């Protein structure tokens, strides 16, 4: 099983032992997978990411990333895109922020070298916001900031990209471009994307895991029953014949 890059076995984790956000979660992610993790708010999606990243130690169970404990692997192998921080004034340029993705690569007590700068600028070009490099990061729109955070995660040249609610601040028209970008990245790296918006999961996603404290389902397709169970309320999925495509919640569908 050389191709398993992430493996969770019986992982129970959270911020309170009495009410863990995750209960006995088993999950295997293969190399070059594009996994969407869906589930209701408070269902443990972000906790799952934090456990994989090694930011949160599980109460019990085992986490293996590239066959090792998350704290032991080279940090730059994992790229993390957190939820966009709400607008706050901060004196840093977009390039400054992207360079933070190279903090692990540069020697301590030194500034960034030309190689770091080139890598960061390269990522900004790839993401299509190179013209914003010298702008203050707090002046960006939600979508631009999201791109900057992706560029930051990519600047360390990771093998796995983990995204937490990447579409929360992106308008619907930008979503497709955003998915095209992720699909392109997916050719080279494994992607885990957390979202609470089932309607936003696109056809580029190869697999979906539905989580509400435990993994309710995990596979290439997902059934209405499972999502209902996860969300604890009726939830309609509409497939348009595209494999793995999940569209719209019942509310949106009834408006059609």
């Amino acid at each position, binding site marked *: 099983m050389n191709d398993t890059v992430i493996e969770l076995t019986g992982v129970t984790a959270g911020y309170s032992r009495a009410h863990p956000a995750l209960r006995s979660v088993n999950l295997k992610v293969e190399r070059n997978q594009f996994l969407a993790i869906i589930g209701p708010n408070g269902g443990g999606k972000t906790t799952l990411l934090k456990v994989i990243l090694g*930011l949160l130690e599980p109460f019990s169970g085992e986490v293996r990333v590239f066959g090792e404990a998350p704290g032991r692997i080279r940090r730059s192998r994992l790229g993390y895109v957190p939820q966009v921080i709400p607008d706050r004034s901060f004196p840093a340029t977009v390039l400054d922020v992207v360079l933070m993705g190279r903090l692990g690569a540069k020697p301590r007590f030194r500034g960034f070298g030309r190689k770091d700068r080139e890598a960061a600028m390269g990522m900004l070009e790839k993401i299509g916001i190179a013209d914003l490099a010298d702008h203050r990061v707090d002046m960006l729109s939600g979508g631009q900031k999201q791109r900057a955070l992706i560029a930051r995660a990519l600047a360390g040249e990771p093998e796995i990209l983990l995204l937490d609610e990447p579409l929360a601040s992106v308008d619907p028209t930008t979503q497709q471009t955003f998915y095209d970008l992720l699909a392109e990245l997916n050719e080279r790296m494994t992607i885990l994307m957390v979202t609470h918006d089932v309607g936003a999961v696109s056809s580029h996603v190869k697999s979906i895991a539905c989580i509400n404290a435990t993994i309710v389902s995990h596979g290439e397709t997902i059934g209405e029953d499972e999502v209902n169970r996860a969300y604890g309320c009726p939830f309609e999925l509409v497939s348009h014949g595209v494999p793995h495509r999940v569209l719209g919640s019942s509310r949106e569908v009834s408006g059609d």
Partner: protein
Amino acid sequence: MIEMLAYGFMRNALILSVLASVSCGIVGTLITVNRMSSFTGSIAHASFGGLGLAYLLGFDPMAGATLFALGSGLGLGFLSGGRRMVSSTAMAALWATGMAAGLVFIKLSGTYNADLMSWLFGSLMSVSSGEILMTAGLGAVSLLTVVLLYRELLGISYDMEFTRLQGVPTGLIRALFLILSALSVIVLMKVSGLIMVIALLTLPASVAGKFSRSMKQMMVYATLLSLVFSVSGLYLSWKLDLPSGPVIILISAAAYFLTGLFGRGD
């Protein structure tokens, strides 16, 4: 300006103000971008407890204040578990407890020391060469820290979690920052007293932040602004025969409110 410098105590006041600007600019910028101004006010007032204790037990008040500032700064910092936000109730409790304990200790010591006023409101008119040396030392340490660890400090200020994921020892760097803040509070008390030191550390930095594109730039501008505010404040207080600390604060505040009317708010 020249006539003012005919007096040795005024020369010392000027030298100290100039040297203090370096820490005001550098540490003040870090405090401001990390939104820790109430934290700073809290440790400043907590240090009054140490001051009182020193009077009671008969050791150097400066040492007592430093001890309490460091203890409360690191304590608050780690109570919050390394997260940026410290509970505002904890800060208010420490703020008031420090003052209350200080007053009780001083009453118990039985000495109503005239020095008390200078701890509370500053005493630029009686600067010793030891204090000048200390301020210069703090400025040098602040500068060295930021030269060596600028990227890491920027990282923990912007996104602590992400920076930790990069393998940066964020706890250690945050502790260093907390120690630097506590020491700045103590050293800068000479200028404005513990009651107003919070303004000295945050107002120039806030004004600078409105015109800066990077944290580095903000530090340079904040240092220059501190310099302008304190030197002009010193001169005005001399001309108008007013206490220097409050005049410096009033000039800084005027600049803060004026720039607040334009540009982005903070």
